């Protein structure tokens, strides 16, 4: 009985709503009036929509570039994992991007990228070159947005790996040292296998982060210039809220849902596999 309020609320608002999205995607709907059954026509349109492929491609760029976050987070963790006075506060400062709102990160980086006075133009100017206006260049814009989004994501991976490094088995490390392992072989054969679980989590969190990307796009570019930096989540938002094509938006959301489901299935299988092997 205690479980009822939580379960009901979560069931209705989260689970039911997600399923309802699939249902809505078979209708033509402006969000207010009557819903009209159109079958698969939203999907037919979608697979014919050039913008859809731009979003899909950008989601892949997000995913690909985000894969840098776990190794960079690990590298930072290795750098910072020293028991020296003052390191605690240093580590905390490294974590700060993680707790910033994505809007904050977006505003901060819009500013770094500012073509006339931004940090980037300052650096380019130092070498006598002119900085490209990254956020208004359709070829660079997505990379620039992802680079900004990587900042908190690396901090997240850093937190996870620092926790992982603290749980390493001293015996194994000691044995490795006795056997003369150091540098790369040590990291690769002795340390990384022990970080498998943490790495897997860092990877999962990163993939989810990449697929969820919305805030940064909305804040930094609104999908522009000319829709060149949209991702599926943003395209769905734009189609529904600005163009009142809720059925079409729902179809985009459903595609995102399917991509996510594939990933969740992979995640759960990998997570459950070692348990079965042990049994």
């Amino acid at each position: 009985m205690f479980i009822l309020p939580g379960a009901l609320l979560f069931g209705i608002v989260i689970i039911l709503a997600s399923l309802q999205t699939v249902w809505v995607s078979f209708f033509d709907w402006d969000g207010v009036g009557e819903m009209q059954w159109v079958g698969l026509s939203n999907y037919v349109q979608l697979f014919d929509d050039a913008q859809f492929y731009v979003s899909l491609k950008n989601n892949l760029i997000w995913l690909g570039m985000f894969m840098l976050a776990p190794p960079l987070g690990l590298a930072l963790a290795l750098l910072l994992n020293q028991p020296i006075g003052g390191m605690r506060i240093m580590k905390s400062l490294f974590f700060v991007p993680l707790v910033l709102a994505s809007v904050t990160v977006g505003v901060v980086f819009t500013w770094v990228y500012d073509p006339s006075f931004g940090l980037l133009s300052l650096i380019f100017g130092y070498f006598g070159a002119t900085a490209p206006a990254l956020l208004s260049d359709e070829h660079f814009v997505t990379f620039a947005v992802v680079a900004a989004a990587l900042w908190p994501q690396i901090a997240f991976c850093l937190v996870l790996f620092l926790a992982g490094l603290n749980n390493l088995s001293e015996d194994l490390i000691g044995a490795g040292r006795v056997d003369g392992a150091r540098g790369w072989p040590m990291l690769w054969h002795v340390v990384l296998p022990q970080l498998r679980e943490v790495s897997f989590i860092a990877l999962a969190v990163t993939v989810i982060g990449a697929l969820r990307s919305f805030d940064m796009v909305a804040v930094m570019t609104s999908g522009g210039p000319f829709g060149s930096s949209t991702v599926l989540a943003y395209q769905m938002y734009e189609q529904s809220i600005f163009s009142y094509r809720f059925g079409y938006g729902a179809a985009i959301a459903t595609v995102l849902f399917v991509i996510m489901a594939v990933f969740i299935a992979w995640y759960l299988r990998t997570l459950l596999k070692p348990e079965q092997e042990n049994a």
Partner: protein
Amino acid sequence: MYPRPIPEDSPWRRTAYAAMVALVLILWLVPLMAVMVTSLRSFEEVMAGNYWGWPKSFNFVENYTAVFTQTAMARYFLNSLIITLPSVIGVLILSTLTGYVLSRYRFRGANLMFALFVGGNFLPAQIMMIPVRDLMVSIGLYDTYYALIVFHIAFQTGFATLFMRNFIAALPDELFQAARAEGASPGQTLVHVVLPLIRPALAALAILTFTFVWNDYFWAIVLTQSDAVKPVTAGLSNLRGEWVSAWNLVAAATIMVAIPPVVMFFLMQRHFIAGLTVGAVKG
């Protein structure tokens, strides 16, 4: 310890190491520091393009007063508090109840229910945008504090349930057997046995939920419209559109948005890190 600790008897190497870390840290935080410094600059300086150098004059009081008096930022800030605090309390209450039941009682559908709580966590929020917005419009909550509070409680309860279930499941069985032997009802057990023991978990969950809800932007723009209810994140992005060239004020507003979660983080860092790693590891 890995990597091998730098020996204590080599002060020179220790200093070199500390200097290197400090340098990396400065590079890491340079964008944020520049925004902080710029929030102190005068408008003339910003117009002249001095974004990164040392400020010529310090306008701390002027800029932050201007943000409070000339923009709706104070209102947004208050809105964020009005939305975030009840959400955190709601999540704590609901997830303690669900986590307690799911960890201590076996019943039909328990596993399925738990799987749904966990699975729902993975969904990108955008997937449920259309029905949730429609629901809020039809029950008259759209563009009110309640829309965001109700949604955040519902969404965060998924993660929080997972968190609480694992924490309560790790408590020793003997406690519960003893409570039952004493004839305590499930409710009494919850209040007198479980609650005193889960304080650290509640603290961790409170700080995590606070950060998530405070930083939310997507639902803020989907479920609210008017300045009277809009939280700081949505407010900041509005402000940026209106005050295009007054970067010193935008910078001050940005810092205002960042301060509550950063302060919370530094105050409760141990809980935050523990919560994040435990939550992620178990998830």
